[in-house]
């Protein structure tokens, strides 16, 4: 998704302006002129100025479409790949604490291998081996407390 200068300039200008207005609600530091709002307000001002610059460039090229979709958006299998990557990450974040690392990671990997076209007979082998390897590296060696979830009974 490509935005033209007018749209990206408008968005930056809006973000910068909101920032400057929002920072005015920050309390002043006692006995100091420089409150916690000063630096973010300067950053907001900078963003707004960048926005103005893009708007200026954009308005001088009126023919430029506001939004140009990238090539892959017209290809169903690429849209599917993109959706699976994002959905897979959301799935992991939502269920890992309840279901546990082993099952979640195995499903997570299987979905991706399937989507990226790995041969079907290899998928279970790869998913199990990679999950075990990752668990060994992070849980056993690096002591990261990966959740056990449903498999709490066999936790080591």
């Amino acid at each position, binding site marked *: 998704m490509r935005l033209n200068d007018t749209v990206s300039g408008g968005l930056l200008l809006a973000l910068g302006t909101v920032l400057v207005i929002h920072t005015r609600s920050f309390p002043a530091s006692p006995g100091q002129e420089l409150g916690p709002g000063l630096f973010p307000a300067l950053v907001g001002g900078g963003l707004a100025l960048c926005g103005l610059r893009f708007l200026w460039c954009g308005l001088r090229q009126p023919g430029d479409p506001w939004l140009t979709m990238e090539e892959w958006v017209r290809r169903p299998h690429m849209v599917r790949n993109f959706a699976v990557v994002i959905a897979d990450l959301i799935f992991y974040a939502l269920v890992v604490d309840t279901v546990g690392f082993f099952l979640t990671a195995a499903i997570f990997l299987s979905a991706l*291998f399937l989507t990226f076209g790995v041969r079907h007979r290899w998928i279970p082998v790869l998913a199990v081996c990679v999950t075990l390897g990752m668990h060994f590296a992070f849980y056993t060696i690096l002591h990261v*407390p990966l959740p056990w979830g449903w498999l709490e009974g066999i936790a080591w």
Partner: protein
Amino acid sequence: MEHVWQAFELVFTPYVLGVVLASALFGLFVGSIPGLTATMATALLVPVTFVMDPVPAIACMATATAMAIFAGDIPGALLRIPGTPASAAYCDEAYTMTCNGEAEKVLGAGLVFSVVGGLFGVIVLVTTAPALAEVALKFSSFEYFWLVLLGLTCAVFISPGRPAKGLASLFFGLLISTVGFENPAAYPRFTFGSEQLMSGFQLTPVMIGMFALSEVIRYAVSNDTPLQPIKQGIGRIFQGQWGLMKQYKMPVLRGSVLGTIVGALPGTGADIAAWISYGLSKRFSKTPEKFGKGHIEGIIESGAANNSALASAWIPALVFGIPGDSITAIVIGVLYLKGMNPGPTIFIENPQNIYAVFIVFFLANLLMIPLGWMAIKTAKNVLRVPRSVLMPIILLFCVVGSFAINNSVFDVGVMLAFGLIAYAMEANDFPIAPTILGLVLGGMLEQNFVTSMIKADGHFSAFFARPIAGSLGVATLLVWFSPLFLGWWRRRRAAAAA
């Protein structure tokens, strides 16, 4: 001298040497696979370094990146796909040489001159960093303020594309750095009531998202054509390299010096060093007409430049805490985690650790010769590993690595959000490096700005009152106004010509 011996004792233990060897192999693998970059390797290594002492943790990153930058040359020569962006500048030239039957020569030169450039950068790092630290000890908040601002300014102006996009990207990074209560007034800013945001965004999930997840997304939405390495065998790669060294003394030196300078500038890394160096090589060559037809000169010069840039990027990182490139931005985060706060005092408080880092750099560059030779010999097999298998594994690594920072699923969400932001930014030609520098340096910039303003009692003229601060301030302003001046000069010249 005592500290140097201590440093040797710290490095030459089976554990540290094992870490160096393992990370070298990891770096070579990541570098050889197109689509996996040296920065990504570093970001993925952060969670792994958690359980390590400071020296092996830093050794791990220094070795992996040095190897990855060299290994990026291999698929460039064999497939015409650069393994890392740092090899992109001379990839076509290298592939043309391979097609002309000179695969051994080009791969050998890539290896040998990577080592030469790398060692040059390390020597400069070892000699200048302690001397600079002596000077930096006298710095006050005024000097640091200008130094950080100059660094950020360079990052914007040197980043590819339009400076306005670099500037917007920098402001975005600075904005992210303001989240949380870690500011001079200790007031929770932009936390929206979230407890997790109280301490701001953690650098690691942001980095992993921006450098690794965005790459996986790019893979997911691109045509994956299986890699087809060339069929011809690779023979004796070191044959004739000494002759090349004697023939191209000046280009090697020029590439190493230029790479070192570019690397030390904040925000510019090995890839920009290689591009500039390749351009200069063609410009100063006695045979510029041979460039593009399979000529080794540019490859030698820019191959040396990208590896020398890698080491010199550590100079500002160690001495001032200002990263020279995206890789050292991650390293600075790790240094803080390990209690080795970067800055001039690190040379006084932890000299043995700093010397140990220097030794590791030499070791990594020397180790590159046998391991690089091995990597070239096995390249055809490594390149056969399908990316459809690698990318899901990397994505799981991203998830677990982000989780490992705080053992919280929230950071996985942060990684996802920043991965999407980075993808959208790159699709719209906004460079990523200024955002990362803004995020890393935002806190330092604000802290030094507020401290200086309080000291100066609100008078901005105090920012120019000390000699070094004044010079840095003038330099920063000159860089800011250079586009206006250049525009005016060009218009004047055009008017005169008309």
